[in-house]
């Protein structure tokens, strides 16, 4: 799968409370969650975002609570991929379990850079800066989950 979009850039330790504040967790409707996505860190997030854009961040993206509403809000808002230097572990597994692509990379990415992600080849390209990084593919077990389209499908196919 090849993903293309511009980057929206954030720093280290972007936590789940700013991705989707708890005051909106009285619903689990993906569209409503998406409409408040990143609101406490970037009021204009939904205005800036075009479908297919990527989030690029620093270390420990998605730290804090286990709320799956966070990757769900990001995915439903139209983000095609999150690229970070590292991910908090519950966010990491939630993203895989719901089928939101995530990439661990140190590649320098600035706000607005044009990004291409080749998930199958494991290549991340910053078209604006003309730089590239390779990232390791997921383990076979996780690839199985992603190929099935998420954990529940994998379960039904007898992978668990």
């Amino acid at each position, binding site marked *: 799968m090849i993903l293309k979009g511009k980057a929206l850039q954030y720093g280290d330790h972007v936590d789940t*409370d700013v991705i989707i504040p708890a005051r909106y967790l*009285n619903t689990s409707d993906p569209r409503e969650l998406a409409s408040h996505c990143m609101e406490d860190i970037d009021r204009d997030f939904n205005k800036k975002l075009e479908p297919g854009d990527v989030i690029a961040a620093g270390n420990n993206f998605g730290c804090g609570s286990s709320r*799956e509403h966070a990757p769900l809000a990001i995915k439903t808002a139209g983000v095609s991929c999150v690229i970070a230097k590292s991910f908090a572990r519950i966010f990491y597994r939630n993203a895989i379990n719901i089928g939101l692509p995530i990439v661990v990379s140190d590649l320098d990415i600035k706000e607005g850079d044009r990004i291409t992600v080749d998930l199958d080849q494991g290549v991340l390209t910053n078209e604006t800066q003309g730089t590239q990084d390779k990232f390791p593919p997921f383990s076979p077990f996780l690839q199985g989950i992603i190929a099935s389209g998420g954990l529940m499908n994998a379960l039904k196919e007898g992978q*668990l």
Partner: protein
Amino acid sequence: MSMTQTQKIIAAACGRDKVIPGEIVLAKLNMVLGNDITAPVAINEFRKAKIDKVFDKDKIALVLDHFTPNKDIKAAEQSKLVREFAREKNITHFYDVGQAGVEHALLPEKGLVTAGDVVIGADSHTCTYGALGAFSTGVGSTDMAAAMASGKAWLRVPEAIKVVLTGSFKKNVSGKDLVLHLIGLIGVDGALYQSLEFVGEGVKNLSMDDRLCVCNMAIEAGAKNGIFPVDEKTLDYLKKHKAQEPRVFEADKDAVYAREIQINLDELTPTVAFPHLPENTRTFKDIPKDLKIDQVVIGSCTNGRLSDFVTAAEIMKGRKVHENVRCMIIPATQQIYLDAMKMGLFEIFIDAGCAVSTPTCGPCLGGHMGILAEGERCVATTNRNFVGRMGHPKSEVYLASPAVAAASAILGRVAEPGEL
């Protein structure tokens, strides 16, 4: 190959002699947990997948604790969805308003977790039960849905950080100060994907409430789990709470750790995490004396246990909450509420001018029961102080022990109990 305590529990749960850090395994679960925020998402996934049976109605705990008693119509709908599922599937451990409490205080109290168990919960502070010698970790709602169906979860076997404790706490120092100190030392991603294994002769000096508080905040260092060895105190606790027969796993003497950290409990002093990350810790020599506050919250799965209220009441007895401060007292479970009431603690709190609330997560996650306005400052015994965590994005949360919170409530600023 030698293994850590966590690795041994995981190996046993997948029927293996050994597991290797980094490998992904499927582990059998002893308990699967969800709350009124995460369970609805899981239940919807469960239903969407057209699965009709849960793997074991006795091994699922559903606790309505976050926005309960329901704060608005939407929250009420979410709770209703969980309630209906619990009835339909005949879930044994379903806790509604009147029996419910903050999940991570409730499960150990009800004896639902024992040493050697593997527990996942759709709540990040599920790591709390490591205090009982269990492997427990937070996951998301889809994990919970799959686990309710299969009784299994995929886990990446973690490496561990060994935290060696020596000595014992001085007056007014507790488990909260220890864990804040540790997070300040290694940072909010200092233990990412790893276990925090606490060992050393200092362990025996920690009460079970201290250990529960310490493991509760393992996630605030990014850890997968925190865990304590099982000793006399653990066994007594498990017996008292009628938990299942413990299965005791000890780390091998030559187990390999990613890192070792030494902490002498004698050297710790009251510690506060400044906004907006739990790693922004300071001790009182670096805390200005004029940090005025608007609210104090004593409660949550971190410090909402009986000993926390005993500590706070000792400090508040015969004193008055500062005129500019609202102080919320929130016992984490009905049992704690009852015990505190019988001990006369509520009288002390109410005389001092505090509001005493029914058990709920409430303000801890900015839900209800004490939301902050723009520019307001709160000292809380909770575990997170992210931007907007307790209300307005421009409000501030300072994380501290019950002793510091009580002293701050009296003095109207971030203050140390020794100042009174």
